[in-house]
Structures are given as C-alpha cells and as structure tokens.
C-alpha cells in the first residue's frame, strides 16, 4: 500500500522534475512548512536542540520550521521513518550519535541504512563525554581509578543500554580489562542521582548533564573522552593524553547534525547548508551551545558524510570489542 503510493509519488515527482527542471523546484524552496523529525520524545536533549535549530532556521529561511517527535525503540523508529520520508527537502532529520553511530553497530536488524538512506547536510555540534566520580570518591585521577578497578569490582552507571554513556564505559572496560559492572538507568536524569548518592562508582556522562554537578563540586571530573580537551573543562585531561597505553586514541563523544532523506535535490541541500551556516553563528545558537558545554562544528555536507562514516566504523569497533549487541 505505502509502496504503491510511494511509487506514484516518485513517478509524479519525476514527471514534475522533467517539466519544470530541477532548478525550478529548488529555486522555490522553501515554499511550505518544513518538518524536522526528532527520534526522541519532547523534552530530551535532541528535542531541545532541534527546537532551537527550528526556531533559528525558520528565521533564516523565512518559512515555518516545526519539530516532529517520533520516539521509540531507542531512536531507530523515528530514524526509519525519516529514511522513508519523501526526499523533497520538507522533511529533515535530527541525526545524532545514536542513529548514525551506535545503533547501526548495536542493533542486528535495523530497518534503515545510515549511509544509503540519508543525505547529510551539516554537523551542528558535538558534546564530550566526561568520566566523573563522586566528590567523596578516593580516586583523584583516571589512572588511580583504573588501578582500583583492575583489582576490585567497580560499577558504572549509564542512561541505558546502547547509549554513548554506556558504550564509553564499555570501551574503557574492554580496553583496560577492568572489572566493571554496567548498571543501566532510564536516562541521565536517573543515573546522575545514583552517582551523586554513591550507588555507582563512575559514569562517562554527557558533559551537559554532569557540568552543573562538576561546577558545584558534587562530582569530580577525572577525564574527558574526546581527543582534545574541552574549553569548558580546560584543566581536565583527555583519556588519550594519560600515560596508559590501552587508552591511546580513546575517542567517544555525542554529536548532532541535520540530515535529509537520500535523493534530496543537491541544490536544496546547499540552500539548507548555507542557512545552517547562519544559524550556527547566531547569538542564540552560540549561547545555546555554550550553556551545554558543546562545541559548534559546522562544515560542508561532504565533511559530514565523512564524519558519519568514521563514527560508524569506530563505534563498530567498540561494540565488537565490548561484545554488546541487541537482538
């Protein structure tokens, strides 16, 4: 049923393209409401970012941009729907480390292809993960923690199986052969209190949710998981720069970027890419990124494609090393 409709639409699209020429369609763009699909429920980090982008993008394009939440099955449901949307530039997708990094490595029977089904537009921002312990924890550095974890069992909290927080921990565990038990929660909002209360020993949390507690002194940051130090935590070392051979080249971060379904006109992608260049330097967006401890990224659609490819392969390595899969 949907197939036949899609065929008709595709045919109609082909006919109109022949009649009008591709440029005419792209020139009109945008002529109606644009929707950004968010594969998480309203109120999450991805949703709030998407609403910020939608707000700025609608000013840049002079057309309404709305956010549509399609949560379920750990972001894979919404991503599948976005992959199957009509590639006319009016349905966009807020991609992130889960949909275009971790999920393809973790889920065995995924219904979308993160590369073939999407036309990347722009990498918007990235967020480091930070290795944090309770302020009362005896460990002052990642090395001290590691030494302890290799001799006795430790627990690490996460926001759920297959999250970047979980996999950063698994990556650490797999590389160092530390004895660490994963304790999953439902979202960072539940996991951070457990760390604050001392129920779990360590967490590789996303910086935004850990930041307030690092600032207030309730949590101690031992290391960041990105290759470079974060501006927000300039005195916190990266795992890579520690003198531990197993952790060389350790890189795990969360990121967000806008994509379109594959087959979207290149001119439309270019229009959106230009508009997003304006968006990411706007005051509102800079302030937004700053409050989250995020790094604004930018770059060309091609660069974003390469970035996704590298993310896919590096998470695949982690998942294989750690042996995490979801049926």
């Amino acid at each position: 049923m949907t197939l036949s409709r899609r065929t008709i639409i595709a045919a109609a699209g082909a006919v109109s393209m022949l009649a009008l020429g591709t440029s005419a369609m792209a020139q009109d763009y945008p002529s109606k409401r644009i929707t950004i699909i968010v594969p998480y429920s309203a109120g999450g980090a991805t949703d709030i970012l998407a609403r910020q982008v939608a707000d700025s993008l609608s000013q840049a394009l002079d057309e309404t941009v709305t956010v549509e939440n399609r949560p379920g099955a750990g972001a894979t449901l919404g991503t599948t729907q976005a992959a199957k949307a009509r590639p006319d530039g009016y349905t966009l997708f807020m991609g992130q480390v889960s949909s275009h990094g971790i999920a393809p490595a973790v889920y065995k029977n995924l219904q979308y292809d993160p590369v073939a089904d999407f036309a990347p537009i722009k990498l918007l921002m990235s967020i480091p993960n930070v290795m944090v312990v309770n302020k009362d924890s005896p460990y002052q550095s990642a090395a001290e923690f590691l030494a302890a974890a290799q001799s006795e069992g430790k627990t690490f909290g996460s926001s759920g199986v297959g999250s970047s927080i979980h996999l950063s921990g698994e990556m650490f565990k797999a590389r160092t052969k530390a004895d660490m038990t994963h304790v999953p929660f439902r979202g960072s909002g539940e996991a951070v209190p457990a760390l604050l209360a001392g129920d779990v020993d360590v967490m590789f949390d996303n910086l935004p949710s850990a930041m307030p507690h690092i600032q207030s002194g309730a949590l101690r940051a031992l290391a960041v998981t990105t290759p470079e130090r974060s501006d927000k935590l300039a005195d916190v070392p990266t795992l890579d720069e520690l003198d531990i051979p197993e952790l060389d080249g350790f890189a795990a971060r969360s990121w967000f970027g806008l994509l379109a379904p594959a087959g979207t006109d290149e001119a439309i992608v270019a229009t959106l890419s230009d508009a997003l260049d304006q968006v990411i330097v706007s005051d509102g967006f800079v302030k937004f990124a700053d409050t989250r401890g995020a790094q604004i990224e930018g770059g060309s659609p091609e660069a974003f494609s390469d970035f996704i490819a590298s993310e896919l392969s590096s998470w695949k390595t982690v998942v294989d090393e750690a042996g995490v899969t979801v049926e």
Partner: protein
Amino acid sequence: MLENIATGFELFFTLGNLMAITAGVCLGVVVGAIPGLTATMAVALALPFTFNLDPVTGILLLVGVYKGGVFGGSITAILIRAPGTPAAACTILDGYPLAQKGQAGKALNMALYASCIADFLSNLSLIFFASLIAGLALAFGPPEYFWLICFSLTVVISISGSSLTKGLISGLLGLLTSTIGLDLVYGTQRFTFDNFNLMGGVSYIPLLIGLFALPEVIDFYVRKVAPVTVKTADKSRVTLEEFKRSLVSIIRGSFIGVIIGTIPGAGATAAAFLSYGEARRTSKSPETFGKGNIEGVAASEAGNNGVAGATLIPLLALGIPGDVVTAVILGAFMLQGLTPGPLMFQDNITIIYAIFIGIMLSSVVLLGSGKLAIRYFAKIADIPRHILLPVVLMFCVFGSYAVQSQMFDVGVMLAFGALGYVMMKIHMAAAPFLMGFILGPLFEDNLRRSFLISEDITIFFRSPICWIFIAITVLSLYVGVRRELRATRAKRDAIRAGGAR
C-alpha cells in the same frame, strides 16, 4: 535575604509575568483535558515561546502550563472516563461514578479544590523545605526505591473492587504487560517478537485510554437502553460538610505527593494511587470508594497535584530533573544561561525568589481558571450520549496517535479497549492493571539494579529507609488483606441471613 526577596518581588511583578502564568495555566488546563495530549507535551510545545522571553517569564509560563495540565487531566477523567493525563487515571475511580449519578459538578469542583490546596502545600514545601527534603532524592538508591515500590503495590488491595483475587490477577497482568519491550540490562527482546513498535514497550497513554474510555463506548452500543448517565452537572456543589470530611485526605494526599515528587522518577500517577489507597484504608466506609465517594476524588487529585511543586525541589536544589517535564524546564533554564542547582541559590537568588513568588501565585490562578474551565467543560455532561460517544472515540484515536505519531498506538488502544471491556464484563477491576503496569518497570529495574550494585543480598536492608518501607509494606498487606476478608465475610453473612428469611 530580605533585600533579595524585595528584589525578587520587583523582578516578578510585571504585567508580562502575570500574563505568562495565566496564559500558561489556561493553556495547560485545556491541553491537559484532552486525552493523549499530556502536560509534558504541553510544556514542550510552549518551550519555543520561552526562547525570546526573559528567564523568569519563560520559566513561569512553563510551570503554569505544567500545573494547569495536571489539573486539566481530571476534567475528562470525571466526565467521559478518559483521563486527559496519565496522573488523572486514579480520579476516574470515584469521579466517573459521581458523574454518572449526576454529580459531575461536585466531582469537578472537589477535584479543583483538592488540586489547588495540594498545589499550594506543595509549593510551600518547595519554598521552605527544599534544601531539607532535597536530600530525600539522593537517599533513595535502588534498594530503597525497590521497597517503596513494594509498598505502593500493596495499594492494589485497596482498588481491587468486588473480588480480591481477581484484583490481584489484574495487577499481575499489568505487571506482566510492563515487561514487554527491550530488556533494560541486556537489551534482549521480551515478548516483542521482532516487532520494532514494541521494542520501547507498550505505550502508556494508548493503554490507559483503551483500558478506561473505550469500554464505555463499546458498552453503550451493546446495551439496550443507554443507562441514565451523566446528568446536568451544574446543580451539584461541594458542601462544607463534604469538604471538611475530605480535608484530611487532601492534606495527607498533598504530603504523599510532595514526598513522591521529591524522589526522581516515581511520578504523579503513583502518588495519586497511594493517596487514594491511604484515604480508603483510613476511611470509616471503605466500601463506598469506587462507587462515587467524593473523598476518593479529593485524595487522588491531591496526590497528583502534590507532586507538581515538589518535582521542582530536586531540580532547583540539586539540578536533578525528576521527570520529563522538569527535564524540559531544566532545558529552558539552561537556554537562559541559568543552571539550576546549589550554585543558582548563590548566584541568582533573586531569580529564584521571583520564580517562587510566581509559583505561589499559580495556585490562585489555577483556582480561577479551573472554575472557568469547569463551567464550560461541564457542558459536556449535557450532551446526549449517542452524540458524545462518537466524539469521545475520535479523541481516543487522535490522542493515542499523538503520543508517538504512529498508527500502531491506535491498535494498542483498541486492543486494550477490548481487554478493558472483557474485564468490565467479568467484574475484574482495571485500576490494579494500570497500577501494575506503571510500577512494573520501577519494581524490576530497581530489583535488578540492586543486584548489579552489590552481590550481597544484605543491600536490601542497608538503610533505615529500607526498614521503614519493609515495615509499612508488611503492615499494609496485613491490614489490607484482613480488612478485605472481613468485608467479604460480612457480605456473605448478610446474604445468608437474607436467604434464611
């Protein structure tokens, strides 16, 4: 300190802020009243409007929407048995029977009074005891949480209706339904049978709407004559005597709400049921609960609104969002460059005071806009059933779809509607099912987390909080079961006596 409060007052008393609260509460009441559109969704929808407002105004708008939404849910729960928000599910138990007796006006007004009082008490707790009770949020680790949930599950005894064993089976079925989806710890499939739509579990709102609202629709078309149902609602009022009688339940419910609200993740629905269970347990005439006892409406609404102010306690005091709504509000704070938590009390104390003043006022605004909303919504009660029910069904479908924008959820709603209808016919209470479904994940997650954290079983007895909840769980089980058995025996004796005559 006084100076800060004065500055806070100055910061608060602007036309914009007053308008933001009023608009927020009104929007919340309307959106909250619509099945499927929850308070969370209303807050997320209002979020973009706050981008260009100043911090206090933006936050107050969101808080207003949230509080309005929590009350709004009770309106449709009472009138058409379709809870507008999940937390209002418990209000159905006595609210809808009252509406069927032609006392919708009374039920709605009591819901409003209970909501406003609970909201006010919750706000007071937020302002005066935030730092004191914020510690509770961290005192509840997985084992403590596990026992809290065990205690909450004993409420099932109170809401089992005519047969205790059937009620318990219903609750167990709800628990079983909650295990559908990807496993929390291993990520393996449970009863999903490769269906992607089920991997995140059965959606809560379609289940809720199906279980409660749809059976009414089905029943109407199967019955011979439409039972004389909801009559003109405007005539009935809450009497002073009824209010006095319910006041204890309201205050107790408010504080149950405050405590549950402070603990991240527990939620307003559980608070409402706990409050309801307590009200019934301590009542002199527990058998009238579930058949239209005004105290039941008061208790459940006090429970869920008591949560509303208190969820802000861990957010403001510790920077921890306890649920999705507070996560959105946290997002709004951060967009404004503010970071809730201990630091905010040092750096931006005037903003906090301004927000506190606004929040206090929101209870009053809620009373006013609630009164107004009741006046208009109560007219629903006058619509003939054969016209009303097709529209109710439409709201059920739209609302189920709205949750995740999926037709699959409409199917979920219909399936649980069928189940709800069967349960209605075999006199199996649906409320325990819902209770089990809500508490199931919390029960299992915390049980398993406790085992992950410690190999040692003694973790379940590690703190005084554990022991307190173990004690009241056992007590509640003993008292509850004894009471139910005694009630059955009394009924049986009465029938024997009647048969002999």
